[in-house]
């Protein structure tokens, strides 16, 4: 009893420490602080809290779109509505329609920071705790605590959510909750959570191919009768969830055309293939190949869609093949955990990374989506293993890839401090001398030296006027290859995990399935 009490204490302390650090990051600057007339993402979120509480739902997606029109799905809007209502009950001047634009009083800033922190506490942190308990349930308590700390203190998410100001943790939290449900075999509930994730930010579409094929595969592996029933149940719950999320824009509450307002706002294909410098395939290769000169906008859209589909196809294929073979060799009813579950994080990584690398209109912040499955995988790996080393490298590179953005926000100090802190907590020293034959270590060391050099150069030299974007472009050139290799690596690993579950050939395998919880 006493020991248990201590372990609970460790979890509580980790969470408190993480919340404290998040709050301290929030003491600093945010996106667009003090830059009229448009400000930045902070003002966008505040503006949505303002318009949702003063306007009927029909106007949410149409009101004065030039000034931060709402461009996330309705769940974000409902969340803003709730936050706005609470805020207005404390001080109505924070959210008066139109006149409160660009308000930056001390107390309103504190309130806004609280909204992020409390959303975190309600969705993301419980999801992480539950994830560690359910996915690493058979590991030692020490490993679980470290895994939790590693996930809680992940620098990229804290810098974007609590520094830059966004609510990505809500979307990611819903996805983790979905994964937790899948691990317990509650597919329908998981589907509801994933619909919520999609309903919060459309970016979680990056996960949709993996999750969709996992659920489809689950139906296949259950056999014809049970599988069909599951399929129908999943279909109905998913559709129902989306209906509930979008119901103010659908009959009988509104005419059918009104659904177009949010949809047009959510999927902006009219914008360019990339806006800022993003470490994806298009932007990196743009140094040599001027894509926008060769192709029209419409063909670029199609091209990127094709590339993306090709990019996540291996993940879908692995999940399908894995579940099909599992249906032959494993009696699914005997196992509480679904046999294809270990493939899922890898498939999520493949799918989200392929979207990041190849899809249309990617922001540098979107790297948070591939980072989530990567960190979930990392949290279960042992220090020194390839997964651990590579994930640590990708995390550090990901933070670096957001450096131009963070620099604009004036978040240089939290950027350094949090990256250092996270590496310290997980016991990873980027500049440690590599052991013999540790190929990944040599690559990592090379990348870290590059990053250090770039930072030093940026401090010392102002870029020539011919190339004002010199440093962001160099940044992209450092980061994009790492992300590309991560994508390839995830394909390799998901294929291996599939083989481990069901054997290589098509013939019936005699061996028992490997430990299905082994995620390494």
């Amino acid at each position: 009893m006493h020991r248990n009490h201590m372990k609970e204490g460790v979890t509580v302390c980790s969470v408190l420490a993480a919340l404290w650090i998040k709050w301290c990051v929030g003491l600093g600057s945010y996106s667009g602080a003090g830059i009229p007339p448009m400000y930045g993402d902070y003002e966008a979120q505040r503006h949505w809290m303002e318009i949702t509480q003063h306007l009927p739902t029909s106007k949410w997606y149409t009101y004065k779109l030039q000034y931060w029109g709402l461009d996330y799905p309705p769940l974000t809007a409902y969340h803003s509505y709730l936050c706005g209502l609470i805020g207005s009950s404390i001080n109505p001047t924070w959210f008066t329609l139109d006149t409160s634009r660009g308000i930056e009083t001390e107390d309103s800033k504190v309130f806004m920071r609280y909204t992020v922190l409390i959303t975190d506490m309600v969705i993301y942190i419980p999801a992480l705790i539950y994830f560690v308990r359910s996915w690493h349930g058979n590991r030692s308590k020490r490993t679980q605590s470290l895994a939790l700390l590693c996930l809680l203190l992940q620098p990229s998410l804290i810098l974007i959510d609590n520094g830059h100001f966004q609510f990505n943790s809500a979307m990611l939290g819903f996805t983790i909750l979905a994964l937790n449900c899948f691990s317990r075999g509650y597919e329908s509930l998981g589907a509801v959570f994933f619909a919520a994730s999609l309903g919060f930010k459309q970016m979680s579409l990056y996960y949709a191919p993996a999750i969709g094929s996992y659920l489809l595969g689950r139906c296949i592996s259950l056999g014809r009768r049970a599988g069909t029933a599951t399929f129908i149940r999943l279909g109905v719950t998913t559709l129902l969830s989306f209906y509930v999320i979008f119901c103010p824009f659908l009959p009988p509450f509104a005419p059918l055309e009104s659904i177009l307002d949010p949809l047009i706002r959510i999927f902006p294909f009219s914008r360019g293939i990339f806006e800022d410098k993003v470490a994806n395939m298009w932007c990196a290769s743009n140094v040599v190949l001027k894509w926008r000169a060769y192709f029209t906008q419409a063909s670029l859209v199609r091209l990127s869609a094709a590339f993306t589909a090709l990019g996540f196809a291996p993940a879908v294929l692995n999940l399908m093949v894995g579940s099909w073979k599992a249906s032959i060799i494993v009696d699914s009813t005997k196992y509480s955990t679904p046999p294809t579950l270990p493939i899922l994080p890898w498939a999520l990584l493949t799918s989200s990374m392929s979207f990041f690398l190849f899809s249309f209109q990617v922001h540098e912040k979107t790297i948070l989506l591939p980072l989530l499955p990567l960190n979930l995988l990392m949290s279960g790996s042992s220090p020194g293993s390839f997964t651990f080393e590579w994930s640590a490298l990708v995390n550090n590179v990901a933070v670096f890839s957001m450096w131009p953005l963070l620099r604009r926000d004036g978040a240089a100090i939290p950027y350094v401090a949090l990256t250092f802190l996270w590496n310290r907590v997980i016991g990873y020293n980027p500049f440690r001398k590599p052991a013999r034959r540790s190929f990944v270590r040599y690559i990592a060391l090379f990348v870290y030296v590059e990053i250090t050099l770039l930072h030093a150069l940026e401090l010392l030299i102002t870029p020539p006027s011919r190339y004002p974007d010199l440093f962001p472009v160099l940044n992209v050139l450092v980061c994009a290859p790492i992300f590309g290799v991560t994508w390839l690596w995830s394909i390799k690993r998901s294929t291996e995990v599939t083989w481990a579950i069901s054997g290589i050939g098509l013939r019936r395998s005699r061996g028992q399935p490997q430990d299905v919880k082994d995620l390494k």
Partner: protein
Amino acid sequence: MTNNSNPRVAFPSSPAQSTVPRTSSKSQLRPTGAADVKKIATEEAGNRRGLLSTLFSGVTPSEWALLGVSTSIKVLLFPAYRSTDFEVHRNWLAITHSLPISRWYYDTTSEWTLDYPPFFAYFEWLLSIPASIVDKRIVDLQNLNYDAWSVVVFQRTTVIVTELVLATALFRFVRGSVDQPMQRIISASLFLHPGFLIVDHIHFQYNGFLFGILLWSLLMARNGNLLGCGFFFAVLLNFKHIYMYQAPAYFVYLLRAFCMSPQGGLNVSNLLSLANIVIAVFVVSFGPFILMGQIPQIITRLFPFKRGLNHAYWAPNGWALVTAADRVILQVIKRTGADFALNAEGIASTSRGLVGDTVFAVLPNVKPIHTFAITIALQSIFMIKLWRNPTYKSFLCALTLCGYVSYMFGWHVHEKAVLLVLVPLSLLAAENHALFRTFVIASVAGIYSLFPLLFTPAETPVKVVYSILWMYLTFQPLVRRLYEFPRSLPMVVVDYLEKLYLAGFCALHLFVTVFPLIAAVPSAQQDTSSASNATIACTPREGFICPETEPLLSSTSSSGRALEFLPLMVTSVYCAIGLTWAFLRLSFIYLKSSSKS
């Protein structure tokens, strides 16, 4: 945070360390003989060869981890609220950099004149050299209230860097400690003390650095090098004169344990060497000013006796309880209409929310001489005990009590002075359960009493969450080692009441948080017309008067001010109860302790 460092890492004995006598832990328990001192002194001289390498050699991986983690969290606090002390120190940088030394203690360009002893002025002068390289505007004397990012980063960085003095002292405390695991917890908890976080890294001061010097002095005392102990304390006194609170304990201890033999004979050579060292330190510090004949001017700067009994926010000491009692009795008299001689000035003082001088309405007024008499009388009791039992542990206890008495009954005590109690008391926490419980009560009450220093809503989660974490991570491992069941019925009752008192802080915090919201509801309707009110950095709505800028606040209606002051008063009184109880506990433990140990 303290537990994150790998507990399995053993402390390797480094070459530098091996020169420190291993027997020191034993010799600390008895007055050190002259032969010991000479031996240690020569060894220390050997130690001094490479000061830097000595300081940082053998810093274990877990200590590097502690330094790394703590630095990264302190760096995150750069943009946090800073009090006027920040501008005070910036102004001192400017004074020492742009004026000749003869003008330092005369300059009145800013209202924040130099009022620390000369070593601190030299320290500021040293800091002003890099400051002028970082940004010329920092050291511009006319550039008042300069708060560009460059000066914030520079000054905050100097706090973190100079705090390494504290870190090195604490790390050395672990080496050669009798109980290394416990000392490691104590050292880590002191380095990460919420008091330092609140007062230094947010509010802005250099206490970590100054207490680092104090701990170096105590370290010397523990290792039996009493000459070094006296030297460091003399240096400390010349940095900040508030440490005079502790001077009696030092005086008695050094005189008895160093300048006299255990039998009572005077050891003239020791006395002379100590006197020489102390005088040399003071000459280095005050020498230039003695030559320029500025001593009277410095004295008036260092000891401004025009202040009141209590600080703006009552420091939770004995006088806070007396003042509160006065207010309560006044209300009782007013309600019942009892015939009693009231002091008209005192009645006015109650409605002024305690700005400036405190005048009692019912109780007899307190003059500075009274506070001195009480302080010295109480201190002398402990000094007699120390004289009879001049060991290191006894000295530590007497030192704590000496600071404690000054804090409890001093004139115009500032709430930050509670660190003078908490820091030496921490070193005693691992002794036994009675001292540990005293430490817990004093720490909780003392740390909570620092909360009103940070009255801005953004810093509230910072101080509260950090303090909770610190308390859990410090108390939990200690209580597992030290816990004892209360053995008699009165002890059971006391134990229960103490736990109840500690639990009461949750209720207190709830009250302090909720009360201004309730009190603000009626006044908010009046406030909506004057919207400018809401944008002042120190919002009256928060219910906390600003401790530093208070005289600038316009006086609003007396009832409104009383409502604003109530949470502060309740905080002060509640903390004062705990601190007084901890004081009584500690006095009792010390006076009852047998003379041998």
